[in-house]
């Protein structure tokens, strides 16, 4: 019954009770906690979606049959997509700059990025509110400079949500992209130039394809995270661009209609898992960090 590693261990007098990386019994308490405090409550909530107020699929019929709720689903995807695109547009140059700047400077920029990630989410969101409102710093500045004469509507709408969420999501795009770009051999671009590629061609046909794994991994992560976002859309968005997470909170906390809350949560869960499956299929878990 001795496996190969066991046999080797006998020979080198390693104690019989030793730790192997494949030992899973030590992870059992953590798994138990996860099942007890995460899986079980989720299953109970989902079960309510087909039992309350009456057994059956009534909640799903109501959810998918109402134009209001369908618009909220659409909104959720539009906002998440918009945030992903804007994050990529801003994140790519930043990641590129980080990859080529002197390491001392890069570590300062990283510190700024991480500090913003560690600051309380609510505080950051309120800060945006103060900056973006009609009487806020940005509008006052623009009016003072004579660029506009009426304040721009930057908050309580799609613009506000996109700005606030992009700011929060940026590190999740920049970090994997940075990892990928750093590993690109500068000689490859040199080779492209030698083969006659101008700057634009080298960017589009060499650098971007090479950075694609990092972009795709980051973009998918941002998209999936955005789908379930609550605080930022609730504070910076108007009611007309409500997202799914807000709808769920409304069902659970305010209307105390857990059947509908569970149904909406299941829809969100299924979409998220499907996207996660796509991510695993194309990138695998080991490439999530941009490796």
């Amino acid at each position, binding site marked *: 019954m001795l496996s190969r590693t066991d046999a080797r261990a006998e020979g080198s007098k390693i104690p019989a009770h030793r730790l192997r990386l494949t030992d899973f*019994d030590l992870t*059992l*308490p953590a798994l*138990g906690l996860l099942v007890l405090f995460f899986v079980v409550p989720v299953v109970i909530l989902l079960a309510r979606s087909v039992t309350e107020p009456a057994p059956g699929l009534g909640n799903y019929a109501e959810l998918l049959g*109402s134009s*209001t709720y369908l*618009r*909220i689903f659409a909104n959720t995807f539009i906002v998440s997509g918009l945030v992903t695109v804007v994050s990529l547009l801003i994140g790519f140059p930043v990641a590129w700059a980080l990859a080529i700047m002197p390491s001392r400077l890069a570590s300062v920029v990283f510190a700024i990025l991480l500090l913003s990630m560690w600051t309380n989410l609510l505080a950051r969101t309120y800060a945006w509110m103060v900056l973006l*409102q*009609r*009487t*806020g710093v940005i509008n006052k500045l623009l009016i003072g400079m004579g660029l506009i004469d009426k304040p721009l509507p930057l908050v*309580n709408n799609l613009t506000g949500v996109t700005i606030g969420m992009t700011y929060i999501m940026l590190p999740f795009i920049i970090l994997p992209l940075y990892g990928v770009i750093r590993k690109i051999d500068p000689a490859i671009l040199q080779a492209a130039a030698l083969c006659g590629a101008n700057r634009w061609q080298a960017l589009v046909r060499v650098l971007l394809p090479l950075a694609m794994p990092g972009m795709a991994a980051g973009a998918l992560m941002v998209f999936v995270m955005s789908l379930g976002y609550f605080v930022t859309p*609730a504070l910076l968005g*108007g*009611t*007309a661009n*409500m997202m799914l997470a807000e*709808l769920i909170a*409304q069902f*659970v*906390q*305010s*209307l*105390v*209609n*857990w059947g509908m809350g569970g149904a909406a949560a299941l829809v969100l869960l299924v979409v998220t898992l499907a996207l996660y499956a796509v991510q695993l299929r194309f990138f695998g878990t080991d490439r999530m960090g941009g490796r």
Partner: protein
Amino acid sequence: MKKILAMAAAAATIATAMPAMAADLVFSSWGGTTQDAQKIAWAEKFTEKTGINVLQDGPTDYGKLKAMVEAGSVTWDVVDVEGDYAAQAGKNGLLEKLDFSVIDKTKLDPRFVTDYSVGSFYYSFVIGCNKDAVDACPKSWADLFDIEKFPGKRAFYKWSAPGVIEAALLADGVPADKLYPLDLDRAFKKLDTIKPEIIWWTGGAQSQQLLASAEAPFGSLWNGRMTALAQSGINVETSWEQNITAADSLVVPKGAKNKEAAMQFIALATSPQAQADLAKATGYAPINLDSPKVMDPELAKTLPDAQTATQVNADMNYWAENRDAIGERWYAWQAE
């Protein structure tokens, strides 16, 4: 594996034994300046008198309350909830009946007393205005709903609760005594006329911020928040015309662990002096009819109590009956 199970069992035993050991009373409210005031005016006095420590928790969350009662693990003993919710939750079996041999209800404002709840404090939705930001302030609900005469953003309470629908109907000319049953079609039609100009506030602090920054120079606010703004030196005006009253209620969730102490707490919290102290700190009105007698007359004048001439009472029983239906329609309309 056996060891792990034994450890888990031990941990579970400790976890369930913990709340039973502590005889502390847990009070949940809505946070912010109001709960701070409740702590000073009620909880600290209660601890002085009975020696029972009061733990503050919150914010109140109806989903959480229901979950606690259903799971039979109720960690809140006294909860500050909205009046319409109290009436509904009592009917749905989520609350303990109050013990009126401990709580003296003879002096409590009967508008806010049910078998399951007594008023916590009451407030009015009034028309607030930042005088520095506009040339003229809206005086009536009709003014606040008139974007020709009063252009600009207006702040309204976001959640489905008594207040905004009533305001819309009053603005549309429905007489105060004909408000109920609410004509929702008419209310939403009226609300549609100002919808793009509405900024929704989700909590009292946000309503103050909107008005003070003139992000929304006017709107419908809780009167206590207007008092606080005026005290902080901002040039505001409050119109009490057709102020719409609603109340918070104190309730005891079904299966609360310290039921007897909870009744004593509510008895103290609704006593004339405790209600007067809270009113002084918050600008909300006492629900004990004897409280104004122990208050500074100057202060008593600023309370909704002094504004009964054109006051409109939101019908809590109507709301309790129709809370779910109105709520669904309200949120669907908002999301349109």
